[in-house]
C-alpha cells in the first residue's frame, strides 16, 4: 500500500564540465608539438583558461577560449627543461570545473664531429702542414646540455643557444691552431656522447737530412756506454737536432743541439731492463729523424758454491752451512728456498748486480735434510744443494793410528805409535803384519783418547805394517814402517896373537854383534868352523858372545888366520862385514922363555901402595902367567931391528905400536939378569 502512495519527481539540472585529451603522443623531444583538444559541457558563460605547468609553475597560458561543446585543438611546442608537464584547463566561472592532462619532454642527444681543412671536410684524423686553416665542425641536436670541447687537456664549455635553450641541429665550428708542430687530440662530449678528433701538424716539406750510425757494436751489457754518432745535411738555418734514445719503446730525449755536417758522437749508459735500444736524431723543423737499433743483452753470471761441510752435528754450536754467491749482470733478485719455503731474498743495491760476491750462511735448528735452492729470478738459473743436520745419535765410530816421530829404525830399536778409538762399542787391536805373519801387539781401549805404545823393530828388513782393527765396526787403519839393519861386528881374541910354535893354545874370542839378523860365520884358514845364529828374537842387538874352539898348535911358517863374517851383510862401501885375526908363531925360544910366559910383573914402586883408584893413575902390566925376574928391561926398537933382537935375546914381549897395521916400532920387554 505504501508503494502506491509514492510520488516520483523528475528534476532537470545543469552539470558543467571540461574535457581534455591528447591528439599527439604525450611524450616527445624538444621542439616537437604537443597537440591536444578540449570541449565543454553545460558552460555558457565566462571563458576557458588553458595553462602549461611545470610542477606548480605556470610556464605558458593560452589566450582565453570561449566554451565550446565541440572539440577544439591546441598546440604547444616543447621547450627545456626535460621532464613532465601538465596541461591544465579550468572555467573562469568556477575554477573547480577543470581538467588536466600530463605529458613529458625527453632528450635525444646527437653529436657529430669532423675536421674541415681549408673549408673542406677531411675526416676525423688529419695531418696538415704548419699554418693550414683547420676547424672542427660539430653538429649538435636533441639536448639541452652544454658541449665540452677538450683540447690539450683543457676543457671549454659551450652552452646551447637560447632561445630555444637546446641544441636543435646546431652547427658549431671551432677553429684550431696549427702553428706548432705536433700531434693534437681533441674530444667533444655531449651528455654521454664523445667524439674524438686527431690532428698532426707537420712542417713544410724540406730536403734536410739527418744520419745516425753506431760507433762500435750494438749489443750492450748493463753499465756499458752505447755510443752512436750523427750528422745533418741541407738543414734550415733555424733547424734544431733532438738527440734521443728509445729504451724498450719509451722515448727519452738526451738534448737538443745545433745541426752539424760532421759526425758528432752521442751516447747513453745502458741500464736495465734488457730489450731493444734505439738511438736517434731528429730534425725538429724538417720533422725527420734517423735511428739505429741495438739490443741490451747482458751476459748474466750466477754461481753458488757450498763452502762448508754439507752436514754437521746439531751438537756443534758453531756449525752452519755457508754459501758463496756470485752474481753479475742481472737486475733480478736472488731467492733462497729451503725445502721449498722462501727464507731469504737478495736484491741488488743498484739497478743491477754488478760483479757482486758475497757469503750467506744458515743454520737450521733441527735435525733433518735440507735442500737449498738458490734461484736468480726470471733468469732461469738456479743451484740446489742437499744438506743434512745430524743428531748426536748417529756419531760414526772410528779408529786412528799414526806414528809418533819416525817410522824407520834399526832392529831392536823402538818406534812409537799412537791409537785412538772413538765412538766404538769395543776396543781396537793392533797387529804387526808382515806378509802372512800377523801378530797381535796391543789392545787399545775405546775411550776416545790417544794411547801411545812402543814397537820394537824386528827382522826381516824392509817395509812392515801395523793394523789397527775394530772388528765390531769392521774398521781398519794401516800405517807402514821400515825395519833396517845396521850391522856391526867386533872380535877380540882372548889369547896372544904372537906365540911360540908347537905350544897348544885355545883360540877363544869375544864376539860382539849388533844390528843384524844374519848368521856369524867363523873360518879358520878358510875352513868353516862354526855358524852362530842370532838369539831367539831373530837378530843381534848389542850381543856379546864368547866363542872358543878346540886347542890348536901353530908353526912359525904358517900363521893361523881366523875370519869372522856376518853372512851376506855389506857395509856402506858394499864390502863384506868381517874381522880377520892373524895368529903368528915364532920358534927359537930362549931357555927362560917359558918362564917369562908364566910370569906376572906388576910395575909398582916398592914403597908406594896405590890409592883407591877413581881412575887409572898408575900403570900395571898384566901377564897371563907369573913373571919372575930380577930386572925388567924396556926397549923401543924399529921393525927391522926387533926381530933379530928378539931371536937373539929371547925378549919376552913385543908390543907393536899399532894394533893391526904393520908396526913401525915395538916396545920390547925382557926380564932376567944383566943385559950384557
Amino acid at each position, binding site marked *: 500500500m505504501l508503494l502506491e502512495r509514492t510520488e516520483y519527481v523528475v528534476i532537470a539540472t545543469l552539470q558543467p564540465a571540461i574535457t581534455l585529451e591528447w591528439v599527439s603522443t604525450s611524450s616527445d623531444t624538444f621542439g616537437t608539438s604537443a597537440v591536444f583538444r578540449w570541449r565543454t559541457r553545460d558552460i555558457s558563460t565566462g571563458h576557458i583558461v588553458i595553462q602549461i605547468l611545470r610542477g606548480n609553475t605556470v610556464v605558458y597560458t593560452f589566450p582565453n577560449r570561449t566554451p565550446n561543446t565541440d572539440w577544439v585543438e591546441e598546440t604547444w611546442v616543447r621547450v627545456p627543461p626535460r621532464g613532465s608537464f601538465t596541461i591544465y584547463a579550468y572555467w573562469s566561472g568556477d575554477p573547480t570545473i577543470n581538467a588536466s592532462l600530463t605529458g613529458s619532454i625527453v632528450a635525444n642527444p646527437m653529436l657529430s664531429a669532423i675536421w674541415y681543412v681549408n673549408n673542406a671536410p677531411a675526416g676525423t684524423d688529419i695531418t696538415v702542414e704548419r699554418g693550414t686553416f683547420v676547424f672542427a665542425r660539430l653538429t649538435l641536436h636533441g639536448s639541452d646540455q652544454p658541449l665540452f670541447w677538450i683540447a690539450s687537456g683543457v676543457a671549454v664549455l659551450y652552452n646551447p643557444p637560447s632561445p630555444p635553450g637546446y641544441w636543435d641541429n646546431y652547427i658549431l665550428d671551432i677553429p684550431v691552431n696549427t702553428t706548432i708542430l705536433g700531434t693534437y687530440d681533441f674530444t667533444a662530449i655531449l651528455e654521454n656522447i664523445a667524439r674524438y678528433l686527431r690532428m698532426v701538424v707537420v712542417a713544410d716539406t724540406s730536403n734536410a737530412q739527418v744520419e745516425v750510425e753506431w760507433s762500435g757494436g750494438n749489443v750492450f751489457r748493463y753499465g756499458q756506454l752505447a755510443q752512436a754518432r750523427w750528422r745533418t745535411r741541407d738543414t734550415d738555418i733555424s733547424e734544431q737536432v733532438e738527440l734521443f734514445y728509445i729504451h724498450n719503446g719509451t722515448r727519452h730525449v738526451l738534448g737538443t743541439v745545433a745541426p752539424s755536417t760532421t759526425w758528432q758522437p752521442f751516447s747513453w749508459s745502458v741500464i736495465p731492463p734488457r730489450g731493444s735500444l734505439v738511438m736517434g736524431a731528429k730534425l725538429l723543423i724538417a720533422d725527420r729523424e734517423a735511428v739505429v737499433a741495438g739490443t741490451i743483452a747482458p751476459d748474466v753470471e750466477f754461481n753458488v758454491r757450498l763452502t762448508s761441510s754439507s752436514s754437521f752435528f746439531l751438537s756443534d754450536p758453531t756449525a752452519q752451512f755457508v754459501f758463496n754467491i756470485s752474481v753479475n749482470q742481472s737486475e733480478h733478485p736472488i731467492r733462497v728456498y729451503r725445502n721449498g719455503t722462501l727464507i731469504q731474498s737478495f736484491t741488488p743495491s743498484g739497478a743491477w748486480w754488478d760483479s757482486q760476491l758475497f757469503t750467506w750462511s744458515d743454520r737450521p735448528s733441527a735435525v733433518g735434510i735440507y735442500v737449498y735452492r738458490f734461484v736468480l729470478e726470471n733468469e732461469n738459473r738456479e743451484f740446489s744443494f742437499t744438506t743434512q743436520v745430524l743428531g748426536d745419535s748417529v756419531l760414526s765410530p772410528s779408529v786412528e793410528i799414526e806414528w809418533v816421530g819416525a817410522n824407520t829404525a834399526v832392529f831392536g830399536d823402538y818406534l812409537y805409535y799412537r791409537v785412538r778409538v772413538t765412538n766404538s762399542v769395543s776396543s781396537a787391536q793392533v797387529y804387526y803384519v808382515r806378509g802372512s805373519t800377523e801378530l797381535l801387539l796391543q789392545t787399545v781401549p775405546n775411550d776416545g783418547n790417544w794411547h801411545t805404545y812402543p814397537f820394537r823393530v824386528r827382522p826381516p828388513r824392509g817395509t812392515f805394517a801395523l793394523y789397527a782393527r775394530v772388528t765390531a765396526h769392521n774398521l781398519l787403519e794401516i800405517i807402514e814402517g821400515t825395519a833396517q839393519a845396521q850391522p856391526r861386528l867386533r872380535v877380540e881374541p882372548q889369547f896372544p896373537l904372537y906365540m911360540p910354535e908347537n905350544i897348544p893354545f885355545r883360540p877363544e874370542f869375544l864376539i860382539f854383534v849388533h844390528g843384524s839378523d844374519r848368521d856369524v860365520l867363523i873360518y879358520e884358514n878358510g875352513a868353516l868352523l862354526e855358524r852362530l845364529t842370532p838369539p831367539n828374537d831373530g837378530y843381534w842387538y848389542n850381543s856379546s858372545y864368547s866363542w872358543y874352539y878346540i886347542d890348536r898348535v901353530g908353526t912359525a911358517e904358517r900363521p893361523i888366520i881366523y875370519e869372522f863374517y856376518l853372512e851376506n851383510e855389506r857395509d856402506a862401501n858394499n864390502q863384506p862385514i868381517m874381522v880377520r885375526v892373524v895368529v903368528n908363531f915364532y920358534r927359537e925360544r930362549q931357555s927362560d922363555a917359558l918362564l917369562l910366559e908364566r910370569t906376572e910383573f906388576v910395575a909398582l914402586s916398592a914403597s908406594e901402595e896405590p890409592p883407591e883408584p877413581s881412575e*887409572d893413575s898408575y900403570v900395571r902390566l898384566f901377564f897371563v902367567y907369573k913373571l919372575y925376574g930380577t930386572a925388567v928391561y924396556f926397549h923401543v926398537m924399529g921393525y927391522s931391528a926387533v926381530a933379530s933382537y928378539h931371536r937373539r935375546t929371547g925378549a919376552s914381549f913385543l908390543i907393536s*905400536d899399532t*894394533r893391526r897395521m904393520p908396526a913401525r916400532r915395538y916396545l920390547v920387554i925382557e926380564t932376567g939378569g944383566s943385559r950384557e
Partner: protein
Amino acid sequence: MNFYRWRILTGPILFGLQAVFILRGLRIDHTLFTGGAIPVPLFRGVRPVYVAVDSALPAGYDIQYDYDAGTLTLYRWNGTDWVPANSITDTLNLRVLFIYETMRAS
C-alpha cells in the same frame, strides 16, 4: 872446535933413568871428524919415542903414529888395504901409551 881432545890419565911414571911412561886419553868426536892428523902432546919439549893405542878401536880401524911428523892418523881397512879414514860412525875414546926419553931431552 877440534875433533879430538887429549886428557891425562896418569902422570909421568919414571922408568929407569931415561924414560917416562905417560898414559893419555884421546877422544875423537865422530860428528866433527872428517879425517886429518892428530898432533900428540910433547913432554918437556920432545916428541915421544914410542906411541901405542889400546885395543878399544872398532873392527876395521887402526891408528898409526908418524914418528917423523909427530902425528897420529886414523886408518880404515877398505878390504884390500889400509887407507886414512875420513869418517867414523861412533865417537872413539882411546887410551894412548907414550914413552918419552927424558935424558935425551935434557
